[in-house]
């Protein structure tokens, strides 16, 4: 870990000033940043401890939604009565991730900004365009077991590793951001980027911008499910995960908001799936068509080829569970 200055801003503006420096990093729970600093993957010269800011509140939002403060811990969010009753997919996703110890520290904002688990990213003896632009990608011809099959680029095939944001993408939540240019809102679905030729940028956050909250829209009916396929029964990153918010109406699908983890550099949301599914009777053939659509551009890299059929099956299983269809 490189030496760094440690500071505590006394206001949001102050935090923005301090973090606008390219060599500064904001720290909240620290569960990801300190991990990476020990490996010298992250080498900030200044660490801005934003825990003193009042951003931990979980409160009712306009239009019946819910605002989850950037510093609300994953534990607080998953245990919140309204999250449990109105947004169970979010509670389930959070509880399927990490461990209680980590969730007690991890925050909404930090979790959104969680960096990839790609083995080449976390090992400074290996090439990685995300860590060191221009150094190459070790994973493409290496061990790509964890890696993406959708939205990859020749420069990076890393995945976004989290669970929480996948549920938020299915729920169509919004990230509230404050920065030098004022406040702005970004849908969670657009918050994370695809790697393209700038894989070093995980998301759309600009220097000096701070996440203040995530707003969930008013709750909808139907079933909410989070299915996470992993190599251990607990404490493992997703091979593939599916977040689903599904409503039925008279034997037909009335709503199907889906997002996927483990497949891409971002929580994957394909609006065409909803268009295809809504209004249809749930059948194996329909689920197959949805999977065809989801995976039409999927590309494996050897070790992760399995994710393509696995995503297909996980999608079918989730839709069957949500709609009551027999498979």
């Amino acid at each position, binding site marked *: 870990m490189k030496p760094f200055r*440690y500071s505590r801003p006394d206001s949001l503006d102050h935090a923005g000033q301090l973090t606008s420096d390219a060599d500064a990093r904001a720290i909240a729970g620290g569960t990801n940043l300190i991990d990476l600093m020990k490996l010298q993957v992250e080498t900030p010269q200044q660490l801005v401890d934003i825990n003193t800011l009042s951003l931990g509140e979980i409160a009712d939002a306009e239009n019946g939604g819910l605002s989850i403060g950037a510093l609300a811990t994953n534990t607080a969010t998953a245990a919140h009565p309204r999250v449990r009753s109105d947004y169970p997919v979010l509670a389930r996703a959070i509880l399927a991730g990490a461990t209680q110890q980590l969730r007690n520290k991890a925050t909404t904002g930090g979790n959104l900004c969680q960096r990839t688990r790609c083995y080449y990213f976390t090992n400074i003896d290996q090439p990685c365009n995300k860590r060191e632009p221009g150094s190459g990608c070790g994973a493409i011809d290496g061990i790509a077991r964890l890696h993406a099959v959708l939205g990859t680029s020749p420069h990076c095939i890393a995945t976004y590793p989290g669970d929480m944001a996948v549920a938020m993408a299915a729920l169509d939540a919004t990230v509230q951001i404050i920065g030098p240019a004022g406040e702005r809102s970004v849908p969670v679905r657009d918050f994370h980027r695809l790697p393209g030729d700038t894989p070093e940028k995980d998301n759309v956050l600009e220097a000096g911008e701070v996440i203040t909250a995530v707003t969930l829209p008013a709750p909808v009916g139907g079933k909410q499910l989070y299915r996470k396929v992993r190599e251990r029964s607990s404490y493992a990153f997703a091979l593939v995960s599916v977040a689903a918010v599904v409503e039925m109406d008279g034997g037909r699908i009335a709503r199907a908001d889906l997002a996927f983890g483990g497949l891409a550099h971002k929580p994957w949301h394909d609006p065409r799936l909803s268009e295809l599914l809504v209004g249809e009777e749930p059948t194996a053939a329909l689920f197959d068509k949805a999977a065809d659509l989801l995976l039409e551009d999927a590309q494996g890299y050897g070790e992760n080829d399995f994710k393509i059929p696995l995503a297909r099956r996980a999608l079918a299983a989730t839709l069957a569970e949500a709609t009551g269809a027999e498979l």
Partner: protein
Amino acid sequence: MPITINDTPHELPDDPRVSLLDFLRHHAGLTGTKKGCDHGQCGACTVLVNGMRINSCLSLAVMHDGDSVTTIEGLGTPDAPSALQKAFVEHDGYQCGYCTPGQICSATAMMQEIANGWPSDASDDLEGPIKPSADEIRERMSGNLCRCGAYANIVAAIAEVAAEDAQ
């Protein structure tokens, strides 16, 4: 403000790089908290901060001014062990003993989390009452690796204390 560890105040380190774990082990002389991976992947460093369990390896000591930390040494002593400590001995909920302080700190906090009614990945109902069933304990203790493979006995030890508490 200083940091309070097991009811004793300590001055924070000058070097902000010192993790809470290394602060406990090297500065405060409390080596009961173990370093297994230093990256939040094993749970051996679990301590309670203001009553909540965390991985002390993934936290900087300087971020804890004013906090109250409880380590394994603060839960009980050989002369006056806690109920969980006694149960771990009785049920052989350990072998080499290295993950054990983390397991016991974790279990101590877990009891409170269940009492709070917080659900887990193993809870069938997110909103119903939570019982310390074996399945719940297994999921909630999965952040503490035990390479010796004492899991079954760890679950038995915790279940016994949970059952006593329930009476």
